[in-house]
């Protein structure tokens, strides 16, 4: 069962003359543990695709299926529960609540779900520790660097065994070293069974994914096939 299924998703904004077709019959399936990158120029609809996948927006037509359950019929409360337990979303910036410490930010979805203070704090700390961020647990977001903030955001997106990670330009505002670190973290999560969809316009970041999907003018026009292993890459140049 795929973690995420987008079936014939279309999204239209506005009416009549000012109508904008952001997405046109896009289909996408993401298996557990796979890492998909969505590439496209600005205006191609990739961010909209992500917000629809994350139940932050409803499609004009089409179906969103998360872990076998269609989002269509869900009430607002159920969708919120989905976001608390299954879906982790990372924005390009302004991910963290400035009034909470890093560990409180990470445990936010758990606390919103009703987990007790102590249990959620432990879970948050272990999520941070897995990503090498224990030392920033007690600090507030405005005391952290940009890279640390995004990493904390990713920690929050994977805490508590979430299975779907959606990230919109997660490394957008970071330098290349920090960007790499963020992508490594996402990859590590995928190894743990999380399905990840990352929207980016940067080819180097997209190349971290198993599969790169190309959007143009709201349509999915292409995707990469399964890449060769590194050995296959270098073999033509080597003797024997």
């Amino acid at each position, binding site marked *: 069962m795929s973690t995420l299924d987008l079936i014939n998703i279309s999204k239209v904004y506005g009416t009549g003359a000012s109508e904008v077709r952001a997405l046109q019959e896009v289909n996408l399936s993401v298996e557990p543990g796979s890492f998909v990158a969505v590439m496209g120029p600005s205006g191609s609809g990739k961010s909209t695709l992500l917000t629809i996948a994350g139940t932050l927006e409803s499609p004009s037509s089409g179906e969103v299926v998360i872990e076998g359950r269609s989002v269509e019929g869900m009430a607002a409360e159920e969708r919120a529960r989905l976001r608390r337990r299954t879906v982790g979303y990372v924005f390009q910036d302004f991910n963290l609540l400035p009034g909470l410490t890093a560990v409180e930010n990470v445990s936010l979805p758990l606390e919103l779900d009703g987990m007790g203070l102590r249990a959620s704090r432990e879970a948050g700390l272990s999520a941070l520790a897995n990503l090498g961020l224990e030392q920033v647990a007690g600090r507030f977001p405005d005391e952290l660097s940009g890279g640390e903030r995004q990493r904390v955001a990713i920690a929050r997106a994977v805490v508590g065994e979430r299975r779907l990670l959606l990230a919109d330009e997660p490394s957008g505002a970071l330098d290349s070293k920090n960007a790499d670190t963020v992508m490594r973290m996402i990859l590590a999560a995928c190894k743990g069974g999380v399905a990840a969809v990352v929207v980016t316009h940067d080819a*180097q970041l997209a190349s971290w994914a198993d599969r790169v999907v190309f959007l*143009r003018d709201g349509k999915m026009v292409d995707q990469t096939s399964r890449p060769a292993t590194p050995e296959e890459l270098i073999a033509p140049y080597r003797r024997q």
Partner: protein
Amino acid sequence: MSIQHALLGLLSTGPKYGHQLRVEFEERTGDVWPLNVGQVYTTLQRLERDGLVQSDGEPDGPRKTYRLTEQGKHELDEWLYTPPDLTAPPRDELVIKVLVALQIPDVDVREILQSHRRHVLELMQQWTRLKENEAESDVALALVVDAELFRLDSVVRWLDAADGRLKRMALEAEPPAKAGPQLRRRSAVRR
């Protein structure tokens, strides 16, 4: 690719056997650019002829030791500190391909761009795998992988820019009434 300066560089740390030179070169470039034996010895001979290295008189073969001369050292220094000539752009096959495609009617240039884009991304995926697995500890390898990734990235960026230009061109060409699409493209393409 000329490897003579690379060999001069390897000799600057001390005299070495030919065989040693080959092994070290491969090691220091992350095994990415394997060298041909013949290529190595041919280059060494040429260097000796030009007076940049000096051999110890042994017969040609693995046991022959080479050392750097004063002139060779001077040549090495100059090469290291002189930036390469970047003024004339290399003949880029991809660019030529796109330029040709623009001339031909009934060819979907944007499709060509997309298929190249996909291919380049697939390549980049592989290089990134390499970075992920091995390049952590091997600095030399990391440098080479980065160089490749940035190079391929620049290709993707050019593809995106070209895409944008073509899209704008198509939009601008629309307003005048239909006078035949083929005619239009040719007139738009005229330089």
